[in-house]
C-alpha cells in the first residue's frame, strides 16, 4: 500500500515544529502590503506580519496559492511514491480549495490526490490536519484518512473575538457577522466559524467580557480532544486565559499559536481565539 502524505496551506497556523514532525507539507498563501508580496510563513513570520500591520500605511490583502504551487507539491510527493490528502481553508473564505482542485485535475493521470474543504480555518484547520497526519503516520490509507477528516471537520470549533470588524469587512470575509456592523457604540464582536464561514455570536464592550465569552464556550464541551489558543499579539491575555483553562485541560497540552499572516490580515490586531476539537464522535 502506498504511504499517504498530508498537504495543507499556510492558514492552518500550525507551528513549524509540528509540521516537520508529522511531515505535513504547507503551501503558502500570499500576503500583499501595497506592491510587496510575501509568501505567508515563508518570507513573513507572524511576528513580522503584526509589526508590519502596526507600521504600514497599507492595508494587507491576501490571495490563494497559484495552482502551480500545488502541482509542484503533489508531483514531488507522488514521485516519492505517496498518495496525497490535501486539506484546506474553508472554500467559503478562500479559493485555495479550488486552486488545489485545479492542480489535482491537471495531474489526474499521475498523482492520486484527495482534496478536502475543511470548512474551517486557522488552528481549526490545523487540528484537522494534525489528526490526518497522525493517521497517515500510523499507516491509514487515503480513503480512511479522507473519511476521518470529513467526520472530524464538523466537530472542530473556532471561537474568537476581534478588536474591530474592519479587517473582516474590508477583506470580504465578514459573512453573517455583518449584522454587527453599523453599531454606534464601540463593540468587541465575538464570532465563530460555522458552516465554513464567520458567524456572529455576541456583542460585548470590553475585552474582559470577550475573554469570559471564550471561557464559557470552552466550558460547554464535555469532551475535548485538543484545545488551542490563538492570538495576534496579546501575550498577557494568553497567559491569563491559559490559567483559566487549566482546570479544563492540561495546560502543557494546550497548543498556543499566533494567527499567521493570512488569517491576521483578515482578523486584524488584538484578536484572541480558542479552538476546540471534540474528536470523531460518530
Amino acid at each position: 500500500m502506498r504511504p499517504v502524505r498530508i498537504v495543507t496551506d499556510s492558514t492552518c497556523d500550525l507551528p513549524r515544529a509540528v509540521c516537520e514532525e508529522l511531515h505535513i507539507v504547507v503551501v503558502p498563501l500570499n500576503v500583499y502590503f501595497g506592491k510587496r508580496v510575501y509568501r505567508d510563513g515563508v518570507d513573513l513570520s507572524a511576528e513580522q506580519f503584526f509589526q508590519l500591520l502596526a507600521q504600514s500605511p497599507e492595508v494587507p490583502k491576501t490571495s490563494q496559492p497559484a495552482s502551480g504551487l500545488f502541482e509542484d507539491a503533489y508531483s514531488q510527493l507522488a514521485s516519492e511514491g505517496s498518495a496525497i490528502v490535501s486539506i484546506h481553508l474553508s472554500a467559503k473564505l478562500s479559493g485555495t480549495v479550488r486552486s488545489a482542485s485545479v492542480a489535482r485535475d491537471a495531474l489526474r493521470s499521475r498523482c492520486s490526490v484527495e482534496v478536502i474543504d475543511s470548512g474551517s480555518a486557522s488552528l481549526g484547520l490545523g487540528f484537522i490536519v494534525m489528526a490526518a497526519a497522525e493517521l497517515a503516520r500510523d499507516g491509514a490509507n487515503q480513503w480512511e484518512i479522507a473519511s476521518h477528516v470529513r467526520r472530524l471537520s464538523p466537530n472542530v470549533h473556532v471561537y474568537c473575538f476581534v478588536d474591530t470588524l474592519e479587517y473582516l469587512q474590508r477583506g470580504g470575509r465578514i459573512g453573517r457577522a455583518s449584522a454587527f456592523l453599523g453599531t454606534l457604540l464601540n463593540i468587541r464582536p465575538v464570532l465563530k466559524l460555522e458552516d465554513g464561514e464567520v458567524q456572529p455570536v455576541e456583542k460585548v464592550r470590553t475585552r474582559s467580557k470577550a475573554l469570559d465569552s471564550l471561557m464559557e464556550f470552552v466550558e460547554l464541551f464535555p469532551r475535548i480532544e485538543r484545545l488551542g489558543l490563538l492570538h495576534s499579539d496579546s501575550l498577557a491575555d494568553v497567559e491569563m486565559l491559559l490559567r483559566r483553562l487549566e482546570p479544563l485541560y492540561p495546560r502543557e497540552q494546550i497548543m498556543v499559536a499566533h494567527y499567521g499572516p493570512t488569517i491576521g490580515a483578515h482578523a486584524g490586531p488584538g484578536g484572541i481565539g480558542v479552538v476546540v476539537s471534540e474528536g470523531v464522535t460518530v
Partner: protein
Amino acid sequence: MTSGQPRAIDRCDGTRLLAVVVDATELLARRGNLIDALNVFPVPDGDTGTNLVLTMRAAVRAARASGTTGIGATAAALARGALLGAHGNSGVIVSQYLRGFARALTGHDDADALAFARALDEASATAHAAVDRPVEGTMLTLAREVARAAMDSARADRSVDSLLAAVADEARAAVERTRDSLPVLRQAGVVDAGALGLATLLEGMSLSLRGEPLPSEPAQLPAQPAALGVPADVYSYCTEFVINGVGLDPSAIRGEMRQLGDSVLAVGDAQLVRVHLHTFQPTRAIDYGSSLGVVGQIKVDDMQVQNRRLRTCGHAVPEATRCALLVIADGEGFAELFRSLGAAIVTGDATLLDQLQRAVRETGAPEYVVLADEAGLASHARETLATAGWLAGSGRLLSTRDPAQCVAAALAFQSEHTADENLRAMERAPRGIRTARIVTPAQAALLRSTANQGRFVGLVDDRIEVTGDDLVRVAVALLTRLGADSSEVITVYLGRAISADEASSVASGLRARFPGQQVEIIDGGQSHGLLYLACE
C-alpha cells in the same frame, strides 16, 4: 492568478452540470447583496438577489438528492427543486428557465454544444411563456439574447466551454443594455437586478466549467436605487403559494389571478402550480387556490414595508427574526443608538399601544421584548401594556434603572432567540456595568432627594453621592466612586440640556483623568438627566 489550463470540453453530463450550477449558485450568493440593492423593478422591494439564491439552493438540493448522473435527469431535478423552492418573481422565472432547459434535454445522458444551445433556447422560450406580459430590458430579454449567442457559438465551435464563455460575454453585455431599456432603471441609473442575477448564474457556470476562480464580491454597493419609493397605487402585497392538486391548468389559474393583481405568474404542471402575484387582495388569491387543491408555502409580503425597510436599512430581507426588540427611548441620540443595535423605537406617550402594534407588524417577528428604563417608562405605560394583554402572550417587558443599562441589555439581545431566552440574557447583562447619573437639583427633588449645594447633582442608585458647580468634577467624582479606574470602558451619554462647550469639556476632562480607559461620549439627547455615566 490561478486559471486552469483551458481545455476543450466537448460534452457535459449531469454530474458536471450539477457541479457548475453549484459554483454558479455560490457566485450568485456572493453577489446577492449587490443584486438586492439594484432591485427597482417591477417593485423596489430589494429582495431579488436573496430570492434567486434561495431558489437556486433549493434547485441544487433537489438535484443532489436525486443522485442522477444524466444531464436530462439532473436538469429535471434542478427544475423541479427550483419550482418547489422558488422565491419571488425572479425565482419563479428562473425555475421556468430551468424547466425549459430540462425539457430540451429529456432522456439525454450528456449534451454537446449544439444540444446545450438548443436547451438554452428552449429555456428562454419557456421563461417567456410563463410571464403574463413580458417586459423588455429584464432577465427575459437577456435569456433570449444569450440563447442566440449560444446558437452562434455552437455552430462555430463544438466545445461546451467555448459556448458558455460566449454566453457569459453576451450576458454581461445584455445586462449593461438593460440600463437604457426601462425608464425606471434609467431613472435610478442601475441595471436590472433579475438580468444581473441570471447573467451571474451563466457567468458562474462558465468560470466553473473552465476551472477558474470565482471573483469575490461585493464591490461597492450602489447607494441610489434604494431611495426609490413604491408608488402608493402599486399592488401592495407580494403573494406567493403553491397549489397541489389534480388536473391543474396553470394558464387558467394565471387568467384568474390577473383579475386580482399584476406581476402574475402561475407555472407548473397538472399536479403542482406555483403562483406569484402582486395584489391588494392576497386572501382572495389564496382562497381561489384552495378551491382547486391544497395550498401550501404561503408567503405574503407587504411591499410597502419592505421598501421602507430597504430605504432605511439598505437591505430588505432581514435574517430570520424570531423575536423583535422594541425600545421605549427618551432622546433622539438614544433612539439612533438602539436602532443601530437592531431595535424598533417607540415613545412612551399616549399612542404607545398603536406604536407597538405597528412596530410588531413591521418587524414580522412572532415574539418581542419591550425594553425601557424606569425614567422613560412612566408607570402608566406599564399598566397600559399589562391591561392590554401585551405582556401575557408573546411579549415580554424588561425595565432597567437607566438607559445606560438599557444599552447593555440591548447588546445582549439576539433576534434569533426566543423572547424568554432574550429576557434571561438581557436581565443579566446590566449587572456587568455600573452606572450613575447627573441631574439638576429640580430633577433630584422629584426623586425625593434633597440637594443643597451646586447646580449638578450626582446620583448612584437614586442616592446623592456628589454635588457641585463643576460638571466635569462631579462626573469624575462619580466615576471614581463607580470604580472607573479599574474598568475598561467609560461611556457618557449627554442629555439634551448639555451645551456643546460642556460636552467638549466633559470629553477632554474625562480623557485626561482616565487615560487608561476607553472613554466614549455619546449624544443621547435625553430629557431626563444631564449625563448618564457607565463603567464596565
